[in-house]
């Protein structure tokens, strides 16, 4: 990673998969994670022993992952983590994923807790790095991701 650059905030436009607003710190995944078998919904920790970031906690982060992976039970695990308050507060992807979107949609429907899920252009997605301050806003009209670095 290069030296930190201070500068203007930048705004990326994306596509909303599930609405909501959140501001926090980026946690970037080095590899896609299957929430089923990969995320402990009680603690928010990555438990997939094959994942390079096993042991890292996702709770309260803005999760930046390129795409989804694995089992369709992932929707249930994400919804359960949102209910428990152990989930990321927003998810930014480069490839749309219905399984991830569904977990957030259902948590919104039954608990009225909104975790925005947003898809951005892969080129923009690559620029997002762990530790960065980030704000995610998604509604039926569109989605924006604002970063300061």
């Amino acid at each position: 990673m290069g030296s930190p650059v201070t500068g203007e905030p930048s705004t990326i436009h994306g596509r909303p998969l599930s609405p909501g607003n959140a501001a926090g710190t980026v946690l970037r995944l080095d590899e896609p994670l299957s929430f089923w078998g990969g995320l402990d919904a009680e603690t928010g920790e990555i438990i997939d022993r094959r994942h390079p970031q096993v042991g890292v906690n996702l709770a309260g982060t803005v999760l930046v992952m390129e795409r989804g992976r694995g089992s369709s039970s992932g929707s249930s695990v994400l919804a359960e983590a949102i209910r428990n308050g152990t989930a990321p507060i927003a998810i930014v992807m480069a490839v749309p994923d219905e399984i991830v979107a569904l977990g957030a949609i259902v948590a919104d429907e039954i608990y009225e807790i909104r975790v925005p899920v947003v898809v951005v252009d892969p080129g923009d997605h690559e620029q997002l790095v762990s530790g960065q301050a980030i704000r995610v806003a998604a509604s039926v009209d569109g989605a924006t991701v604002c970063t300061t670095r």
Partner: protein
Amino acid sequence: MALTLTDSDQAALRGEFGPGRALAMRVVTRVATAMDATSLLDITGAHIDSCLDHGQAGIDFAAKLADGGSLVRVPTTLNVASLDLLHPELYRGPPETAIRARRLMQYYQDMGCQPTWTCAPYQLSVRPKFGTHIAWAESNAIVFVNSVLGARTHRYGDFIDICAAVTGRAPAAGLHLDENRIAAVIVDVTGLQRHLFDIEVFYQVLGHLMGRLVGSRVPVIVGLPPDVSEDRLKAIGAAAASSGSVGMFHCVGSTPEAPDLATAGGGRVPQHRITIDGAMIRDARDDLSTSASDELGIVSLGTPHYSVTEFERLIDLLGDRPIHPSVDFYVSTGREVLATIQQRGWLARLEDAGIQLVTDTCTYVTPVMAQSSGVAMTDSAKWAYYAPGNIGVDVVFGATSDCVESAVQGRVVRDESLWGPR
């Protein structure tokens, strides 16, 4: 393009058919929008994975649907759940988890789903017809029904499965559409030694390798003999849907949308080609084991649920020998297959040999197996892939014949000659 809804879809959204169906229609339309669909389509059947317990959110969602008066509008089967209702004594987990799991199962029955409790609904006597639209969850079932039966489902997961069943509607997107069913990549096994094509376990390993190589693309396999059996196609699909996100594959000469390579490719031969060699097959096989120990504790077969023909082979391999007393041997299957093997007298033979049948669930989603210090052996690439993470066992992957010989001898033995000369 925005999503266009019919009058009936809009009436459902307004709650004219009750609050449960309104919730289901909201979820279907929200997912359709996320998938960029411009319309919904009618489905003729559904298979539900949401009946497997993952915590309170699953219960809360099912309760909201069921208490809102939801009933499925199409014939709907249920996937494995967290309890074996035919063998409840096997359950070793906390009682409160069992109570929650039982409630979840009841909610889905209350909504009119059939208590099939199997991850292999394609082995039931009634199966989806070619070209029909359905909404199936469970990755191995999705890949089988798309590839082998030619019915059409996208890769649906928890929540959307039951919402599609309750509304009778699904997003017109993904694998429902012709253009997304076209093969994008050739998996060429022409160069492999022919004897591999005669061993069952080869198809597990090929699927595992293919899933890793193709990710979520639709592959077409060339080079296999024609008319590959359903058990073998099931093995390829289940493994590929575990190591990758494969929702459909073609196999030239065996699957209905691939009479030849160009047809599978939508009128032209796919540009990308992956050539499989013997070393890749051996590496993929070795990738499925997490241990080299020969201390055997458990054998688990039947992921996905064993078919009648797979039981027939197991009976032949076992002969009249008993399982070694130090080994716990489990086979998971569905109730309909269980009834068939009971009628044929095979169940009694298996039980006499010391084999425990598991129904309604699977040995890696719920605590049913005895604790053991030894390794767990399986003939299933899917089980080998998920069990270490799910239930913390070390796995040795082998052919069904290896599993049986090991279980009889009480230690891991693998027949290397199966794989032929290096």
